[in-house]
């Protein structure tokens, strides 16, 4: 047989920008090296953190000796219910009238993908998805592959390292009616810049009849308070928006590799919710048939067991607080070094990521001269900062910006 290959014309796929950072980091022999690309929480020793509530939930589950039968296509019912309650609040009128459907998904990515596929098939309006500028790198390829067009609205203001509220309102109020707008519910990725409540209110009031798609990957992780972090989502619903919502439990429960997420569609009534649910199942079945149980069971056990839920809220608060403290210490360190720049945005931004405002040349110097690894856009993961290395980081950033 010949040496001919079917795949001769297949090009090498470009390296993932974030993975590339970690690969380079691994090869670096500098003992002071820092990986600030990683989008996963680290404790103050720089180690992955398995929450106690997770370990306790796992022990409870193990003791139950459950079988391994397939979950329904839409996932573990007690998980989906708890997932929706967490986002909307248990007393939400939407839940009481059963006018929403929540399916368990493969974490946030899987949720966005199902959502994108659903909109591609059923959305009657323009198939344009408006993302904030900038947005999570994976949003664009997900929606594009589902057949949607991508557009943008102004969001991040580089000159202030803050929210371009005027630009956002301006752009959003010009979006063609019935288009889809994606909003980060809290802890915007990659900038860490969130609208304030009064700003959210104005955005919600824009009368363009847009389909609002919330991506909530950090509930609890942003401010430390799950209700506060879900405020925007709940406000929009109260104001008459029948939203669609993606949730992830990767960060707030540290369940990254277990792939726990949910996709919710708020409908006009229970009957519509049933129809939507039936179609979501049709979309899910040819991708992976039904979702993995392990993480969903852990999450459900935590959310539905009062002591574990309390413990979880404490631990999530703890993670958020450590991040906030690192932000403060970084800024204090920069001030101490005599930096003349305004670093207030490091404290004002929220969640795992910080858009430092560093330029590509400065980022490159940080990596080459100090072994501090981050993505080219100047984004750092505060989760990679510890009390042990925050001083070094302040020195390094000062050195490349003075």
């Amino acid at each position, binding site marked *: *047989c010949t040496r001919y*290959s*079917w*795949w001769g*014309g*297949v*090009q*090498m*796929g470009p390296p*993932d920008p974030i993975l590339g950072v970690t690969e380079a980091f691994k090869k670096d022999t500098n003992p002071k090296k820092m990986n600030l690309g990683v989008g*996963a929480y680290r404790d103050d020793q720089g180690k*992955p*953190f398995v929450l106690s509530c997770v370990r306790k939930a*796992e*022990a409870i589950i*193990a003791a139950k*000796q459950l*079988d*391994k*039968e*397939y979950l329904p*296509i839409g996932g573990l019912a007690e998980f989906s219910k708890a997932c929706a309650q967490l986002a909307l609040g248990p007393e939400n009128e939407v839940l009481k009238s059963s006018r929403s459907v929540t399916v368990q998904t*493969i974490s*946030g*990515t*899987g949720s966005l*993908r199902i959502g994108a596929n659903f909109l591609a098939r*059923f959305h*009657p309006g323009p198939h344009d998805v408006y993302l904030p500028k900038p947005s999570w790198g*994976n949003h664009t*390829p*997900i929606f594009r*592959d589902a057949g949607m067009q991508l557009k943008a609205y102004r969001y991040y203001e580089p000159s202030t390292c803050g929210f371009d509220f005027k630009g956002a309102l301006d752009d959003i109020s010009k979006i063609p009616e019935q288009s889809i707008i994606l909003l980060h519910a809290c802890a915007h990725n990659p900038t860490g810049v969130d609208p304030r409540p009064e700003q959210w209110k104005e955005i919600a009031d824009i009368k363009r009849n847009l389909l609002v798609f919330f991506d909530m990957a950090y509930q609890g992780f942003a401010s430390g308070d799950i209700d506060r972090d879900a405020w925007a989502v709940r406000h929009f619903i109260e104001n008459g928006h*029948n939203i669609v919502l993606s949730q992830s439990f990767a960060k707030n429960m*540290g*369940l*990254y*590799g*277990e*792939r726990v997420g949910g996709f919710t569609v708020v*409908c*006009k009534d229970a009957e*519509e919710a*049933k*129809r*939507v649910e*039936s*179609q979501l*199942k049709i979309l899910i*079945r*040819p*991708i*992976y*048939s*039904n*979702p*993995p*149980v*392990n*993480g969903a069971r852990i999450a459900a056990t935590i959310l539905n067991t009062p002591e574990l839920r309390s413990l979880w809220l404490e631990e999530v608060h703890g993670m958020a607080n450590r991040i906030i403290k690192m932000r403060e210490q970084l800024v204090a360190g920069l001030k101490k070094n005599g930096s003349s720049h305004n670093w207030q945005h490091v404290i004002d931004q929220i969640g795992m990521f910080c858009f430092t405002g560093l330029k590509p040349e400065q980022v490159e110097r940080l990596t080459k001269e100090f072994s501090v690894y981050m993505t080219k856009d100047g984004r750092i993961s505060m989760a990679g900062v510890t009390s042990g290395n925050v001083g070094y980081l302040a020195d390094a950033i000062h050195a490349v910006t003075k």
Partner: protein
Amino acid sequence: NIFKVPQAAPVAVFKLTQDFNNDQFPNKVNLGVGAYRTDEGQPWVLPVVKKVEKIIVHDDRLNHEYLPILGLPEFRSSASKIVLGDNSPAILENRVGAVQCLGGTGALKIGAEFLRRFYNGSNNTKTPIYVSAPTWENHNAVFSSAGFEDVRPYRYWDAEKRGLDLAGFLGDLESCPEHSVFVLHACAHNPTGTDPTQEQWKQIAEVMMRRKLFAFFDSAYQGFASGSLEKDAWAVRYFVSSGFEMFCAQSFSKNFGLYNERVGNLTVVARDADNLKRVLSQMEKVVRITWSNPPSQGARIVTITLTSPELFSEWQENVKTMANRVLLMRSQLKAKLQALGTPGTWDHITDQIGMFSFTGLNPKQVEYLVKEKHIYLMASGRINMCGLTTKNIDYVAESIHEAVTKVQ
């Protein structure tokens, strides 16, 4: 409001189980969904799996961090070894790779998405995808949702003689467009339980090689069919040794009983390491926009088992237990039908292999069984042998006898 969304029809096999669950009849029998059951009619978590799960839960070094996009490296390589054999020349030549996926479905999905983008041209949605007539009901949807416009049947099941329609199969292989993709069941064909013999596989392979057809194996029952991993992988290994570049979607749902953990592996056999590298890099991009990275629990369980000699042996014993119970139910069902003098021949029940049997019952007879006897099976006449137990087999045999004699 915004959505004019019609109600979708429920997936038939799950609807069947739902109806079964709602049925109050005390002697009801579920011969629908494809999951193993013990002789007590209960789900069975493999003893080796229980053991390994304990190991995992007590290992404080383990965390819940993201797996790489392509999955747990040791899982991918040990899973590929299971289907291709430890000493597969292709593995030794560094031209075998894999993607950890969500079950067999997920492996088919990633393979299908890759093929649609890169096989037979670029984004060629018109490449014909051939699936057996009949086949697992989700095959069609996996390939059409990946963008393929032309999913067609190839002749497979001969209803009259209740066996393989080899002439039809080979005929379709000879007459199909070059470069067509054929989805082949590695063993324990679902739903018919009818596999080609080794000689027949050789004939199939010869035509496929000559006509430049792409082999995409679906291996959901390795070990579960005959009780032997090697025997159940014979066809896949034969194709590899014949020089095919091919895919094999592996599921560990049945042979590890890990249904709800979604453990699958897409094994890729390429011409050489360079082609393999490029293929995997593009599959990575597909994974990233589908689920980003796969779930870790199931892959950990399988990896720990496959990479420990004692646990591996124990697993093989557990697999044999399942396969043997199925074989026993097959032989007993046939014996009882023959003893009852039920019209027709029932050799196919023991000739067929794996979880399923295509009984040959027609839709009216099936309806009779469901409605009158509270025995739930698919409209196609497919039964899950695992639903049979020593306690219900007499009732089922007698009911089949009734259906065949009363309903034409």
